[in-house]
């Protein structure tokens, strides 16, 4: 297919490089430098999609980020993307795209039948219906609504592309690479500040890419090229193209999405980062984000072929495309006349300019007249016709104020309507940065007012609509920004000669009545094209009592589309202002929320996926565990061996084997993940005395003690053993998951409460690998490994430690026990962990030493009634609840948590207390988390007495055991309790939580 609507010359496209692409299954050709939108227009394709509610035919309205209509499904398979604006897609070889939310196709869309019900589908209609019968909402109404909703489709498979994040600090960040932004970057760059210039387009130049201007004797192309060349030569200036600054956060923190490969053919993307999110902290920010043209709101203003005048100009000048050959321009300002003049110059025919202002004059008007274009001043378009493309407009003379028509309708045939309702500065980022806006009556737009962050504004954003003002304003902003960050700008260059037409005046004209009053008849005055919101919807909302602009937005959905209302928000506001007869500034604006344009989840996640989503911590013995068939459990960030199944073993069989080995022979556990904190200083003992619930001052050097820590509210939050290495030095162990929190906790008290204590804490978790050998044969194994060490019970008693050599390694050996068996915890420098482990395995071989994991550890400790913090406790459990009064000092006047124990609820006798449970049937293993009741026949809600915290099959005891928290449990020993499970109720007896070796005789092997 040939490009019938391509101008014979002009544009910034590369006519030597043709590009093949497919839209809705049809093949087309465009040129390098095209967007999908410009290439489709070059091929005469205007119908790109259907509207949201009524499924009316829709085409391209704009040429950039503000486009409300032309969303397509881009690409296929794993790399398909929904809802991409055709105006923002750089054309590449092999591009495929299709219309979204149409069935069976965009030309013939079944859902267009909705148009017949348009009268019913007004704003808020779903609030008022679909309520009867109630059952049909979930069964019928909502499924139908959901199927109809949504635009494109998500891929159905994982994303093959990669994304990343970059962080950058600069003195001056310039957002927007149009004339103002380029000048700002130049001024700041010449001062030698670090500068970042960001622009969303494929090339710098902004509005200059769409207009023809002479600047200082150069044409715009040469001027841009010279500017970019100078900036690129500066070593501390970073230029980002195809990069959208989408968020402006506190303290001058801005996020930018750089699209690195989206413009490349598939084959050239491989192995490259697709998109990158830049996180920028800037000393000063210069916002030069330009302005968006506003549509005019008139009857049936949504037909394909009705476009913004500036977009027409862009397609003509930048892409060498005639969006139509017979154009009508509808405007309320002079600037839009340029679109007509440029289209005519490119070979199109402008049949009329409909200007709603009654007096028109000026350079551009004269230029249009000189081209013999008919100008109808004081006229408005009051209707359009055409199916899938606009075919004619109906115009009438209007009275000033636009309420009354003073002539009969005249029909003008056309295939393109260019419209311009004036310009709205792109205040989004400024507003995101908490800056206040003010309304400028003369310019008929909101402008940045007082900023809240250290920033400058320049160019059209600042109301500088002429190129001359943009260049001067941009330079000043850049120089001011550089100066504010401590740099000295160079002397300002002389202002260049610029030839540009005078912009003239604008006369706001917010809504054009049709042949009948708004809301009557079939005509629709669209405000938000994407959401099918009409002026009548806004009227209805006001009629129903919605007056706040936020209410109007929400009730009518104006501005809630993927374009975030870039072309509709101000029109909606102004229409509301007209209805309420309040001036626009009194109406206020809605909040501009990030992101400026949508950002893919993939880019936001960056590389923080898979194993990089959260650091994986492994011990120095990890490889051995992997090689020996361990299954792993995540504990915090750690990978811990869960159990070590042998071939053909079930989990329970493996656990039985592991536990029995510990009870009858010897087992070995990698305990390296336990938190270890070296606590040093003359006041270390006093400090521990305040932190732990029990007494620490008199612990002898070389001895070890178990301790519980509470928060100030008296609830247990960590436990572990701590050894006194020297008078002024302790080694504390914590739970695996709690290590970081405990260190923070200790340091918080030392730095903020007890600043007089001389104590220093150092995490040594990853300095020491810990191998725990447990069981009656543990001593025999250690003897082989440390023949020099006196491990007699007299000289190495329970709760003490020794330093020495184990397996040739410098080691600390602790005699503590979490299994109830004789246990030695051997600590060696981290990197020696695996060497020690292998030595232990070798020495233990003759005793059939058995590696065991966390699950067996849990069973073995439960047999002994030892708690696990976070399992027997849940942040609501006191030491007393756990039956651990023995570890709560009655003597110490104060320690953390003590005061809370006497609060009325905390001191209650019938709190949930730790008990053991034995099921009536020894083979019934209660599920952990089973709730317990005293009366299994009570109606629901059934009064609950507690829950099962731990439950296992104990091979040692040949039956199930469980630990539970039960109301008043300490006084309920021997009573029956019930666990009503799904489908059955298990009966158990409340017993002491120590199931095995109550006397502790096995500790000495």
């Amino acid at each position: 297919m040939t490009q019938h609507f391509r101008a014979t010359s002009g544009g910034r496209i590369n006519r030597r490089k043709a590009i093949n692409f497919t839209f809705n299954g049809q093949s087309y050709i465009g040129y390098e430098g095209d967007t999908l939108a410009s290439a489709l227009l070059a091929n005469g394709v205007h119908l790109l999609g259907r509207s949201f509610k009524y499924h009316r035919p829709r085409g391209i309205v704009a040429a950039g980020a503000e486009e409300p209509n032309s969303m397509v499904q881009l690409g296929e398979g794993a790399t398909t993307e929904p809802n991409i604006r055709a105006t923002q897609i750089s054309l590449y070889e092999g591009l495929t795209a299709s219309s979204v939310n149409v069935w069976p196709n965009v030309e013939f869309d079944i859902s267009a039948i909705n148009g017949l019900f348009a009268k019913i589908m007004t704003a808020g209609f779903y609030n008022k219906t679909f309520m009867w019968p109630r059952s049909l909402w979930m069964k019928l109404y909502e499924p139908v609504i959901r199927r109809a909703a949504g635009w494109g489709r998500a891929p159905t498979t994982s994303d093959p592309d990669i994304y990343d994040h970059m962080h950058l600090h600069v003195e001056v960040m310039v957002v927007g690479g149009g004339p103002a932004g380029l000048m700002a970057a130049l001024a700041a760059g010449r001062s030698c500040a670090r500068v970042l210039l960001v622009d969303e387009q494929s090339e710098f130049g902004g509005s200059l890419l769409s207009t023809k201007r002479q600047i200082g004797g150069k044409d715009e192309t040469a001027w841009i090229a010279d500017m970019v060349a100078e900036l690129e030569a500066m070593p501390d200036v970073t230029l980002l193209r195809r990069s959208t600054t989408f968020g402006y956060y506190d303290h001058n923190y801005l996020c930018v999405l750089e699209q690195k490969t989206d413009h490349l053919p598939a084959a050239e993307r491989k192995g490259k980062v697709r998109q990158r999110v830049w996180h920028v902290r800037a000393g000063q920010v210069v916002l030069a984000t330009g302005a968006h043209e506003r549509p005019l709101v008139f009857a049936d203003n949504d037909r394909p072929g009705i476009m913004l005048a500036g977009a027409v100009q862009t397609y003509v000048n930048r892409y060498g495309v005639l969006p139509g050959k017979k154009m009508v321009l509808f405007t309320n300002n002079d600037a839009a006349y340029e679109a007509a003049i440029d289209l005519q110059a490119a070979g199109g025919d402008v049949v009329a300019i409909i200007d709603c202002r009654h007096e028109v004059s000026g350079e551009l008007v004269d230029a249009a007249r000189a081209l013999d274009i008919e100008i109808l001043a004081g006229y408005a378009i009051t209707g359009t016709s055409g199916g899938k493309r606009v075919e004619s407009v109906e115009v009438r003379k209007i009275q000033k104020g636009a309420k009354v028509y003073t002539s009969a309708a005249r029909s003008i045939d056309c295939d393109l309507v260019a419209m311009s309702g004036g310009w709205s500065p792109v205040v989004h980022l400024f507003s995101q940065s908490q800056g206040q806006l003010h309304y400028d009556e003369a310019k008929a737009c909101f402008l940045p007012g007082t900023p809240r962050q250290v920033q400058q504004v320049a160019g059209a954003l600042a109301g500088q609509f002429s190129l001359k003002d943009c260049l001067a304003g941009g330079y000043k902003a850049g120089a001011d920004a550089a100066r504010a960050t401590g740099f000295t700008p160079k002397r300002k260059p002389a202002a260049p000669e610029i030839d540009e037409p005078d912009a003239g005046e604008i006369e706001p004209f917010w809504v054009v009545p049709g042949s009948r009053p708004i809301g009557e008849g079939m005509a629709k005055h669209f405000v938000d094209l994407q959401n099918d919101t009409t002026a009548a919807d806004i009227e209805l909302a006001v009629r129903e009592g919605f007056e706040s602009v936020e209410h109007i937005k929400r009730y009518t959905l104006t501005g809630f589309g993927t374009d975030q209302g870039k072309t509709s928000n101000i029109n909606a506001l102004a229409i509301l202002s007209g209805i309420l007869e309040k001036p626009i500034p009194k109406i206020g604006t809605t909040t501009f929320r990030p992101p400026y344009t949508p950002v893919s989840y993939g880019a936001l996640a960056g590389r923080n996926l898979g194993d990089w989503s959260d650091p994986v911590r492994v011990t120095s013995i990890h490889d051995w565990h992997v090689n020996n068939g361990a299954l792993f459990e995540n504990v915090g960030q750690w990978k811990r061996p869960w159990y070590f199944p042998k071939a053909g073993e079930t989990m329970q069989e493996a656990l039985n084997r592991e536990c029995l080995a510990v009870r009858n022979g010897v087992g070995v556990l990698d305990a390296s993940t336990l938190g270890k904190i070296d606590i040093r200083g003359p006041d270390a003992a006093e400090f521990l005395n305040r932190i732990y619930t029990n007494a620490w001052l008199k612990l002898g050097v070389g001895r070890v003690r178990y301790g519980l820590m509470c928060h100030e509210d008296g609830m247990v939050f960590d436990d572990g053993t701590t050894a006194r290495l020297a008078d002024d030095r302790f080694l504390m162990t914590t739970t695996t998951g709690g290590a970081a929190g405990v260190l923070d906790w200790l340091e918080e008290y030392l730095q903020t409460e007890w600043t007089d204590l001389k104590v220093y804490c150092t995490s040594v978790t990853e300095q020491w690998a810990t191998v725990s050998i447990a069981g009656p044969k543990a001593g025999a194994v250690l003897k082989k490994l440390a023949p020099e060490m006196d491990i007699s019970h007299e000289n190495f008693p329970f709760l003490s430690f020794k330093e020495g050599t184990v397996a040739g390694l410098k080691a600390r050996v602790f005699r503590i026990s979490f299994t109830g068996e004789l246990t030695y915890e051997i600590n060696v420098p981290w990197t020696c962990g695996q060497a020690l482990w292998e030595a232990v395995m070798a020495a233990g071989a003759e005793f059939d030493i058995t590696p065991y994991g966390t699950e067996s550890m849990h069973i073995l400790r439960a047999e002994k009634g030892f708690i696990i913090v976070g399992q027997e406790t849940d942040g609501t459990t006191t030491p007393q609840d756990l039956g651990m009064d023995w570890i709560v000092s009655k003597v110490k006047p104060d320690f953390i948590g003590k005061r809370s124990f006497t609060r009325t609820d905390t001191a209650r006798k019938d709190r949930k207390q730790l008990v053991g449970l034995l099921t009536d049937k020894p083979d019934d293993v209660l599920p952990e988390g089973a709730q317990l009741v005293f009366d299994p026949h009570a109606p629901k809600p059934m009064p609950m007495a507690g829950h099962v915290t731990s439950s296992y099959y104990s091979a040692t005891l040949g039956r199930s055991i469980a630990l539970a928290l039960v109301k008043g449990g300490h006084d309920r020993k021997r009573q029956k309790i019930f666990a009503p499970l799904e489908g059955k109720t298990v009966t158990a007896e409340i017993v002491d939580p120590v199931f095995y070796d109550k006397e502790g005789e096995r500790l000495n092997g």
Partner: protein
Amino acid sequence: MVKYSIFTIARNALTGHKNWPKQWRSPEPKATYDVIIIGGGGHGLATAYYLAKEHGVRNIAVLEKGWLGGGNTARNTTIVRSNYLWDESAAIYEKSLQLWEGLSQDINYNVMLSQRGVLNLAHSLGDVREGVRRVNANRLNGVDAEWLDAEGVKDFCPIINISKSARHPVLGATLQRRGGVARHDSVAWGYARAADALGVDIIQNCEVTGIKREGGKVTGVETTRGDIAAKKIGVVAAGHSSVIAEMAGIRLPVTSHPLQALVSEPIKPVIDCVVMSGAVHVYVSQSDKGELVMGAGIDSFNSYAQRGSFHVIEHQLGACLELFPIFSRVRMMRTWGGIVDTCPDASPILSGTSVEGLYFNCGWGTGGFKATPGSGWCFAHTLANDAPHPLNTPFSLARFESGALIDEHGAAGVAH
């Protein structure tokens, strides 16, 4: 009140929709009211509605400093569920869910309650233990709850990634089938319309600047629209509760934090339920409009700004893609923040105070939206009777002295 139905719409269509009445009036404040509700969000409007409907109190004003429903009601992720761990929470949230189930009909306003099921994922053995515990507790409390293993999760939500090699693999989930989502704005508007029809004055753009007291009793409020007298005041001001409390010389155990949420561009239906993961900090559902609605953990610092820090969002999307790899090319369309008032135990306060006639309903943290009907219902009872209903008796201020906290950090679904 004009009854809303398809027939009313059809009839109005014939007259160009010119005859719809206002959904609520915009009255001038009267000099005095029996009860003033401070805060015109969902909870405040629901309180006013149930006060009028259930307790016959008609001389009520709801004072809203901005536009009604403009606070957290408009800023949440619309999730509705009642599967809380502790008996006290389960009871009040279940009451709320039961009210939700008939709400559209009760207030003749479609709040679009969609009971598509809520999954709370478990990613570690500890999560599994807590999940099973919660399911068992829910079941005995009469709250529907099921435990699904990883395969069961996949059956219920086929696009979820249950790969065992994931960094934090899905090991199972609790499922509450009666949980789901509702349309947040409609809840505020529906309650406003229904309360207005019962004579409640909803006064917008009316900021309370002082609480007037005499002899330890409230006598009224000072506002930007003048002084208004009242015998009782119910404060339902969410993130701004502490500000109002300070006016009355009261301290609350409440801190205000930003809570951010976001939506994607609308896409065709891909996820038919609500998925929450407290462990990796993300929750996801898809709205009737096709947007993926997502929330994350709260920002750590105190703030009254309705915005948070961007790294929270990035972290959340990383977690989201771990669970839903197919969302990678879906695009984030809009982010926003609310101000959540959090209590030390992640449970709310519905309570009288040391000032007679002054009541607070606050501290809902991240759980406020789902509680809207139940909260309003209980608070109305409390205001009408000067005594709490048994459902909200445990949620008193006194619990912070006695230590009888209701620690729902685990069930709140997000890390505090």
